[in-house]
């Protein structure tokens, strides 16, 4: 028991590493502020491909989405971060992380938007078009608002996954929360910093996890 407290809940170490980890948390927040909007925008673009009149465009979208959903995000990240320099393209960790996340999260968000747009009845499109709205206006003012409402739980749930996924940026030395905690662990030979990082993730994300459960129940009740 003593040993467990000493190794995992060491107050002295906790005090020492808290500022470092809070800086890591700020960096994680900064990273999220970059990759979540990028993914949401990219996902919307991919989803719009599926509405195209041309089969070739529709299939390009499907292939892209399936390809980037099949590659584990860490593989994409390492391929971009340590593979591209061989082709003479060296990216900073931040850019590499953003690019890998953009490719991965756009595919997931794209599938969610697509499911949302599928859930909007054909009649809504037809009614909007027959009142004289153009295709773009129909999508923006009629279809998307309903689509987003229908898949809101999935959008929030995927966003939680993206926030959790930012922890893999530690592998390419991007100084986010997990990287800071792992640094502190190897310097102190003690697991307390990683326990603290885990606690921070849980405290930050737990309300969102609860929110998803509630949203899911509300949408299911409809």
């Amino acid at each position, binding site marked *: 028991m003593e*040993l467990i407290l000493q190794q995992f809940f060491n107050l002295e170490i906790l005090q020492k590493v808290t500022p470092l980890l809070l800086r890591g948390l700020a960096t994680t927040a900064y990273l999220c502020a970059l990759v979540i909007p990028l993914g949401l925008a990219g996902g919307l673009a991919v989803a719009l491909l599926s509405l195209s009149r041309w089969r070739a465009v529709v299939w390009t979208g499907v292939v892209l989405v399936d390809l980037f959903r099949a590659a*584990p995000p860490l*593989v*994409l990240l390492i*391929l971009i971060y340590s593979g591209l320099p061989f082709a003479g393209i060296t990216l900073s960790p931040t850019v590499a992380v953003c690019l890998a996340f953009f490719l991965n999260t756009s595919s997931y968000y794209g599938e969610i938007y697509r499911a949302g747009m599928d859930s909007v009845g054909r009649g809504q499109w037809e009614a909007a078009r027959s009142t004289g709205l153009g295709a773009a206006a129909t999508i923006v003012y009629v279809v998307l608002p309903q689509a987003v409402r229908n898949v809101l739980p999935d959008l929030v749930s995927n966003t939680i996954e993206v926030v959790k996924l930012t*922890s893999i940026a530690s592998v390419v030395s991007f100084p986010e929360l997990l990287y800071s905690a792992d640094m502190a662990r190897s310097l102190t030979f003690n697991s307390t910093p990683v326990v603290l990082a885990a606690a921070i993730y849980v405290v930050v994300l737990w309300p969102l996890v609860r929110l998803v459960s509630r949203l899911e129940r509300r949408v299911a009740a409809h």
Partner: protein
Amino acid sequence: MSTWERFLDTFFKPAMIAQYWPDILKGALVTVEIAAAVVLTGLVVGLALASLRAYRILPVNALIVAFVDVFRALPPLVAILLVYFGLPSVGINLPSFVVLWVVLSLVLAAFAEEIFWAGITSTPKGQWEAARSTGLTFSTTLAHVVLPQAIRLGVPPLTNRTIAITKNTALGTVIGVGEILNEATTLQSFTGNATPLMMGAIAYIALFVPVVALGRWIETRFAWRRA
């Protein structure tokens, strides 16, 4: 050398592909083994927890909910590092593949529990009452009436979650599990060429594109429209 040749030489060097494909294949086997073990353990534990929760024993349910919420909020890589580097300091030494298997199984179990539980609660009360009034016990009702429907309802959401979690086997590279990514990065730094990395990426895509396509199919096949 033209740009195209240099590109091929950097990312698709034939000599290297010929020499190292057995290593990548070995990694692929490890990936498949761990992924299969995780899917099996995670789904079984998740189903067991959801069934246990149906008995509504207050302290037990509180524990299950706490477990599920924590593992839904915790990034898997954090849990992996915590278990892998933390346990040895209290005298428990687990091989890295066991750590990966246990952590990913727990993550999948948490998500699976939540999905199966949603299925159990969405079974109309009348079905419980009808089953109980024909003389079935609570446990038999759960096992033979409610769970078959709950499992079926859970298939589409579970498929995607399961695929996403099996892809997390790549995280094992961080603690030195010899799966595809680990073999690929080791070979890459050993040869100073990006070909092994490309081979690894292709191996993942070859492995998971069929799974993703299957997932798409299962999703439409099992989409159970309730009236």
